[in-house]
């Protein structure tokens, strides 16, 4: 197993791990958004979905643990890479260079950290229901009511949208970049990979922000 450790902890191997776990997290986002869209169907649909999810605690927890480990591996390897990269590049240039690379590619750590802080808040908000005392008075699975109450607050709506936009920036570089890391690159399909990566990021951002916006504007009651 030493060979595997050596591979995964090399500069290219670390990137592979980050890319693989990153794509796994994108898969989760797609599934999560599909579930969220049930809010447009009606209160029964989304509350039913939440109830069904919790019906099989064993499967739910296996999935959750898988997700949590992917999430932590993604972050742990990123921290390792960032730390090593800082050591490799101890002194910056006195004159900042004109932009040779995209904003998204240079700010992956910043956008990632914002998304991380959002995820922590999001879990406290809707999974553990710690942020609003009103939630305790609701029935066990009334997701719909929780959303309606929360997204009346413009601060929460803004924070959700801001985080989702930064997630979009993160993914617009991250998804196509993972293809580069896997070595999947060719003039024939470079453009397809890049454009679909950006399209998916925008779709996810629009999809996720459509819910707080619709509730705030009173389109969902």
């Amino acid at each position, binding site marked *: 197993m030493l060979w595997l450790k050596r*591979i995964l902890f090399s500069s290219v191997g670390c990137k592979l791990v980050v890319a693989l776990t990153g794509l796994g997290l994108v898969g989760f986002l797609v599934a999560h958004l599909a579930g969220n869209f049930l809010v447009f169907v009606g209160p029964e649909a989304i509350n039913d979905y939440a109830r069904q999810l919790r019906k099989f605690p064993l499967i739910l927890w296996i999935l959750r643990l898988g997700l949590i480990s992917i999430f932590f591996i993604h972050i742990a390897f990123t921290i390792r890479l960032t730390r090593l990269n800082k050591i*490799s*590049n101890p002194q910056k240039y006195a004159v900042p260079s004109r932009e*040779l690379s995209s904003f998204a590619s*240079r700010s*992956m750590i910043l956008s990632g950290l914002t998304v991380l802080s959002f995820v922590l808040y999001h879990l406290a908000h809707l999974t553990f229901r710690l942020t609003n005392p009103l939630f305790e008075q609701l029935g066990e699975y009334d997701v719909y009511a929780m959303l309606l109450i929360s997204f009346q607050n413009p601060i929460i709506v803004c924070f959700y949208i801001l985080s989702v936009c930064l997630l979009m920036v993160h993914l617009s570089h991250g998804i196509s970049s993972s293809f580069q890391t896997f*070595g999947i690159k060719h003039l024939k399909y470079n453009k397809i990979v890049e454009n679909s990566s950006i399209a998916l990021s925008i779709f996810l951002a629009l999809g996720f922000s459509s819910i707080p916006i619709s509730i705030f504007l009173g389109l969902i009651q």
Partner: protein
Amino acid sequence: MRFTLFIWRQSNKEEKGRFKKYQVDDISSSMSFLEMLDLLNEQLINKNEDPVTFDHDCREGICGSCSLVINGVAHGPERGTTACQLHMRSFKDGETIHIEPWRAKSFPINKDLSTNRRSFDSIIQSGGFISINSGSVPDANSTPIPKTIADKAMDAAACIGCGACAAACKNSSAMLFVAAKVSQLSSLPQGKAEADKRVLKMISTHDKEGFGSCTNTGACEAVCPKEISIGHIAKLNREFIRAAFKSDLNL
């Protein structure tokens, strides 16, 4: 033309360097950037001051010696050009120009603008070659190579090993340099035999020499004087994955 120069001066590896201001006048717009520095050095020598040390050799853009970061950009504002092939007409009269050495932990500064790039030599020594006895000149076309592949290998072979990729990278990653060598050799039948060993050894040396990892920002291909594409890095990654998981060799 006249310019105000801020040049990084550092008398040895240990000393903490700083910028020093110089004024140069009567610069012809047809002068190369290095000729402008030559003129400055003549003036400094005449005044009994220490001339500015910088690396240079062929001055025709093929040796990879010159290594100046000009106004924050490796090899200066002109794309696909080494600093020695950069001309003063690319600058505005009266412009202030900052000149710095490559900055990366793996390129320690010798003096002023000159850096020690021995780390690149060790990467090449660890696998950037083909160890077959080449014998006498083979018959033409005895090894058929499709034109598209020969062209791709040639694009990668254009690398002059100057180190601008690592200098421009926010992680000081020399991935484009390693990629150019790996891609060139592994594209061709002569280099295929040792492809797995080569990529594993070169990546291992790259990491040991203290270069960072690739974030796919593309800053390297933007400054590369030979305009080598980061598509070669994708090929490097592909070669690495194959060697790591399919071959009998270990990293």
